[in-house]
């Protein structure tokens, strides 16, 4: 275990949401995830320890988890509408 640990309560945030966020930061660090009794332990392994700023990365990741959670909500709520819009767009029916 490294000194760099982020913990996320999975009763509040879906683990899939967390993983999507971590994917976005793969240029800066690798992440090792462990389930710790309802808490997701994220071990952060920097790609370049010389320029690595853990507190800054942690702050950005936590903000991004909240945003990603909203993205998931919007996506779930609008998924049927999205399909309907695309179906209408490419349907042969005259939309005008």
């Amino acid at each position, binding site marked *: 275990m490294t000194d760099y640990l982020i913990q996320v309560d999975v009763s509040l945030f879906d683990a899939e949401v967390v993983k999507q966020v971590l994917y*976005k930061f793969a240029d800066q660090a690798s992440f090792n995830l462990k389930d710790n009794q309802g808490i997701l332990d994220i071990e952060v392994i920097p790609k370049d320890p010389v320029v690595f700023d853990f507190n800054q990365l942690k702050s950005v990741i936590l903000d991004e988890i909240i945003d990603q959670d909203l*993205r998931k909500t*919007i996506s779930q709520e609008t*998924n049927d509408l999205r399909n309907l819009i695309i179906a209408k767009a490419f349907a042969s029916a005259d*939309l005008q």
Partner: protein
Amino acid sequence: MTSATKAKFKSLDAYKNAQGSFRFLPFKFIKLDNERYILTNIAGEFIVLDKFDFNKIRDRSLEMDSDLYHKLKSKHFIYDDSSTVAIDLLALKYRTKQSFLDGFTGLHMFVVTLRCDHSCPYCQVSRQNEDTEKFDMSEEDALKALLFTFKSPSPLIKIEFQGGESLLNFKLIQFIVLKAKEMNQSIGKQIQFVIATNLSPVNDEILDFCDEHEILISTSLDGPEFLHNKNRPKAGNDSYQRAIAGINFVKSKLGPDKVSALMTTSLESLKYPREIIDEYISQGFNAIFLRSLSPYGFAIKTKSFDMYNTDAWLDFYKTSLAYIIEINKNGYFFVEQYTALILQKMLTPFATGFVDLQSPSGIGISAIVFNYDGDVYASDESRMLAEMEDKSFRLGNLKENSYQEIITADILVDALQNTILEGVPMCSDCAFLPYCGSDPIYHAATQGDMIGHKAKSGFCKKNMGVFKHIIKLLEDDLEAREVMMRWIRV
């Protein structure tokens, strides 16, 4: 009040309050900076909100009589029971944005020769001695390429002659133009011809032919003399002089609107944004396309990720754009074409037809390349890779394969399937999806995978940087906004 009146008009209260009674339409968002968010809907319309307003969406505390509510509703981010047309309107806008798919392949590039009189160090295509005719396309392959071209369902066919130095095989260009016109007599498509050339071999005979057949000239101008000649070494060190003489020759014979110039951004170019733009203006051009550095040579050799110069290029782009905006403010109309294409995506309902920013990727379905030896490639970059011994994106050969076999080649179908951004990790929830595209060749070259990891992608970093910069200018700089609005062609 009569009961009939009541039936016609709802009370004012019916339009107020009712927090939470709105519903989301599909939209995506991303931080613009620490204080603001960009929201884009499925048709690419965008709105910028500060954190305070964004949080009202997040916690659904929008008030239905607020300006913000009406703004979000009118731009199709939310809807309610009082508006049922949003879905039909969005469908219509989405269809219009995707209209580039209608025509299928429009641009057909004929590599008529690999011979060249230059030895540019960044050239991705193996240059060959000028007198080595084995690197010329044959008439037989040219005919097969034309038959292929006219099988495209696109009503607009653009035939672009590439090299090497294409004019070193001018006889074949003449042959193709005349044959294309002859074949098109019974087909009736709209055809446009473009010769990409360094103009070094240009002469009266060539330009008379171009004049007669309305052929456009696309040439290279990398900047002032010292930079152009450094980028484009040639025996006699006179590439710049020949290019300028050629540009003036074309202008005088064909007219100023018949020649355009493209620049290649070398590492050296990054130091001279103002000088490059000044050169374009002094040659009478009204536009420049700030192209990014081509990663292929570097990436192929090292197989490393491709972030190496993106920051430097973005600095170059921002400095150049600021300078161009100042020039416009001072009264000279001058367009940065990459910005103009993106503005069209952001601010109009129309598609651009710009191959590099399409989803699915424009390879094969918007542009296709016939190499000098009859090989068919999915894009110009694909044949550049091929000249470096990577033929991953070779779709077939004109002598061996039919149109159907080439256009349904597994590699092309796979690439198209894998470049629909809605299915690409990180892209699928990116707010810039309606403006962006996919470049499978770039990612194959730099990451060994046509999708690529976007967190490590120079293509993603570059375009995210450009999109954010343009939106910041539109939001924060009224004068810059006025200038850029004039660049949009509809």
